């Protein structure tokens, strides 16, 4: 473990192609930090979870005899005399993309060992994420007040509520977990854990700026899932 501190230069073997690396009897992902590889594998499994939700949505939407509610109207907001379609959802989409950008920059400044910029940008990401969750709570409240339940709703096919609460609820849970970890990582970055290599209280591993990239992978994934939910659930 001592060798893997940030001071030691580890030479990454030349890329000899995917087949030779998979056929190697040492390790497959040469030069890829294990934490990052594990995060990617977790994200692949999470992709399956969200895919199954979206596939079940497709299945119930195609097989129902009742008309599917028009998301454009259901999620519209009244501003003055106008009914703006999907306004809140559009704002949520832009907020999540903004947070994805700040996270990408946090990773970049992390690798440059720019402690303050990294912490500021992660804090901004966490605040954007928290505001996203807040808007989602507002949206849930609005729909529940209008009588949307997992088993019925006044707009059309009863499956609409079940899919809405399950898909957006699961995504919102992911965002919430991400926000909590972003605050933890912001504190760690601000305190300089990644520069001093202070050991984490949970794993007792030395802290490293790689952790920011791993955090970033998770956060971008949350944004990625929203891209698919936005397209299939809200726009379709």
């Amino acid at each position: 473990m001592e060798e893997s501190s940030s001071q030691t230069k580890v030479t990454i073997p030349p890329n000899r192609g995917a087949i030779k690396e998979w056929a190697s009897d040492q390790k497959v992902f040469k030069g890829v930090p294990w934490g990052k590889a594990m995060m990617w594998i977790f994200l692949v499994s999470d992709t399956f979870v969200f895919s199954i939700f979206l596939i079940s949505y497709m299945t119930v939407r195609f097989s129902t005899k009742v008309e599917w509610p028009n998301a454009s109207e259901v999620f519209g907001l009244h501003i003055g005399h106008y009914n703006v379609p999907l306004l809140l959802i559009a704002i949520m989409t832009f907020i999540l993309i903004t947070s994805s950008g700040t996270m990408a920059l946090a990773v970049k400044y992390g690798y440059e060992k720019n402690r303050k910029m990294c912490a500021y940008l992660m804090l901004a990401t966490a605040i954007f994420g928290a505001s996203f969750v807040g808007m989602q709570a507002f949206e849930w409240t609005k729909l529940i007040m209008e009588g949307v339940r997992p088993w019925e709703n006044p707009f059309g096919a009863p499956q609409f509520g079940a899919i809405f609460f399950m898909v957006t609820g699961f995504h919102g849970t992911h965002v919430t977990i991400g926000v909590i970890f972003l605050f933890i990582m912001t504190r760690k970055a601000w305190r300089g854990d990644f520069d001093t290599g202070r050991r984490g209280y949970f794993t007792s591993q030395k802290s490293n700026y790689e952790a920011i990239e791993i955090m970033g992978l998770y956060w971008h994934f949350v944004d990625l899932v929203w891209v698919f939910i936005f397209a299939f659930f809200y726009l379709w």
Partner: protein
Amino acid sequence: MAEDTQQHPLKIYFYVWILLFVFSAFSYWVDWYGFQGFTRWGLILLFMMLKAGFICAIFMHMYWERLAIILAILVPCFAILVFVFIMWHESYYTQLIRKIYFLVTGS
């Protein structure tokens, strides 16, 4: 370790950031303008894939990763497409059964 491999100019992040905003605005505009049918679905899918591609490739640094890990991530996702195909047919079958049932019972 990865300090040497995942450092990229600031410019590329801003380009992608702007592109993501533009694609999101376009996909919102698809709804605003009220496209219907295949034009709507085609445009939604196009902007969705572009956004997903850029987030994955640039923000998640997949473009600069080794082919071994890229394949480990992307190849399993084809199983999802197979599942989509199966359930797509399954849902039409379910709908047919429902229609027949409602026709017979007269509800």
